[in-house]
């Protein structure tokens, strides 16, 4: 089986400071990869490089495109990369405000990606938006409300609906549950897990919350100071951490 994403030697410096160095992994279709580490460990830098938002100094990111098979997304032209990012890719931001248009209604937010890939039938766009709002448990009668009128959890669910409406194959998530209270987090995780299974999505989730990766991720990468210090199956890494930093991380989780 061809990996959906092959990452080779991704290195990014901010001037003299290291963002991340020599990161490599394969992601197979339907697989969810978690990236954990403390603040400043290079998680978000790595995610930005993979999603084409940052330009790495070295390395390649091969994505298995529908048309031409594996291609280096970093060598693609910008129109091609932006096309990918509105069709086959999705990016869920930590803050819903970064991923939504706050001045546009919920339906418009969900419909934007459809219209961006050429949908020009209002009725179809509207019914797809309604369908997706239902899937993320936002009531139908909120479709014409703006996200500013939504709670934090609803905004985050709306962001997910907006991203998944074009049926992407790869989802990048940056702290998707950050800033939400635990019961809302639990429902969001439940929803994400359901969608990932149902749609057979591959996902890369960056988080510092070990419970989130335990629940969602099949495999785990632990980062520290821009390096990957440990990787493996999620349960294996969390239950039997080998690297000193991972041991520290696992033992630092507060027990209720």
């Amino acid at each position, binding site marked *: 089986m061809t990996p959906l994403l092959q990452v080779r030697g991704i290195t990014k410096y901010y001037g003299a400071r290291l963002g991340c160095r020599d990161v490599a992994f394969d992601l197979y279709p339907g697989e969810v990869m978690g990236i954990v580490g403390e603040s400043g460990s290079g998680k978000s830098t790595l995610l930005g490089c993979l999603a084409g938002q940052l330009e790495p100094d070295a390395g390649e990111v091969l994505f298995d495109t529908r048309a031409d098979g594996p291609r280096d997304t970093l060598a693609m032209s*910008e*129109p091609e990369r*932006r096309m990918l990012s*509105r069709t086959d890719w999705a990016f869920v931001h930590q803050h819903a405000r970064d991923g939504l*248009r706050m001045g*546009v*209604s919920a*339906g*418009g937010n969900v*419909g*934007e*990606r459809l*219209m*961006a*890939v050429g949908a*020009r*039938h*209002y*009725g179809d*766009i*509207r019914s797809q938006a309604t369908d997706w709002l239902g899937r993320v448990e936002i009531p139908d009668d909120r*479709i*014409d409300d703006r996200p500013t009128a939504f709670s934090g959890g609803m905004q985050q669910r709306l962001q997910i609906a907006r991203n998944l409406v074009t049926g992407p194959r790869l989802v990048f998530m940056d702290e998707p549950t950050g800033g939400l209270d635990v019961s809302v987090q639990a429902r969001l995780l439940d929803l994400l897990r359901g969608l990932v299974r149902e749609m057979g999505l591959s996902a890369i989730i960056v988080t510092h919350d070990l419970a989130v990766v335990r629940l969602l991720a099949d495999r785990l990468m632990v980062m520290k100071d821009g390096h990957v210090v440990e990787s493996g199956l999620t349960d294996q890494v969390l239950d039997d951490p080998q690297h000193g930093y991972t041991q520290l991380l696992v033992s630092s989780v507060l027990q209720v």
Partner: protein
Amino acid sequence: MSDYNFAYLDEQTKRMIRRAILKGLAVPGYQVPFASREMPMPYGWGTGGVQVSAATLTPEDRFKVIDQGADDTTNAVSIRKFFERTAGVEVTEETEAATIIQTRHRIPEAPLSEDQILVYQVPIPEPLRFLEPRETETRKMHSLEEYGLMHVKLYEDISQHGAIATAYAYPVKVEGRYVMDPSPIPKFDNPKLADCPAIQLFGAGREQRIYALPPYSDVVSLDFEDHPFEASKADHPCDLCGARDSYLDEVITDDRGGRMFVCSDTDYCRTRQAQGHLGAQLAAKQEGAA
């Protein structure tokens, strides 16, 4: 002979503006940046249109200015006088007789011809501006042809009002490529943009942009398959000349609900009245006088 250089601007400035115009004509709908000059009028009063007119005027031209279709409003009169004084060109109020027509917010009702130039005053040239405030981003969207956002605006209209409620500055796509703001003309005028024999030039002075439509351009108003574009106007004949095909202004005549609809294009209305066409209210008034 006036003490001004012909048409106020110096020759080098006019050359710079002409280069921008030619580039605009070569890439229809593309917003060409230009070094807009201070003009002796405030921004928002047509500084862009005036500069484009100044750069296209020749001593042989006959110049006409309309403001919302009318020849006799402050804006139109002062711009017309400005060029009468600084360029010494002939002026006219007749659409057919003019070679250059500067317009604010209307396209004349009378059909234009190949030897005419229509100059629009544009307040905000960027159709995506209210959806995406960053200029760097909108330029990228134009260059990569990412126009999904424009439809998001129309979608919002339908979801809130049941129909596309945008009534003026209705976005168009030019030659299947650039999405363009036609300046705040009513959408009634949008069909006249397409396949027009005259050259159409758009000048935005404050925003420092010039764009253009060469003659007989393909201009399509954006819409949805199930909510097609519709040119709309007040459903009423003109009360002065009886015209049913022209764009109308509603005029409140007293404080007891009296009102009349009149052609916004004054030259068109006057011409029709001279030909003997009579609208309902004018007929009633003449009867009362007789």
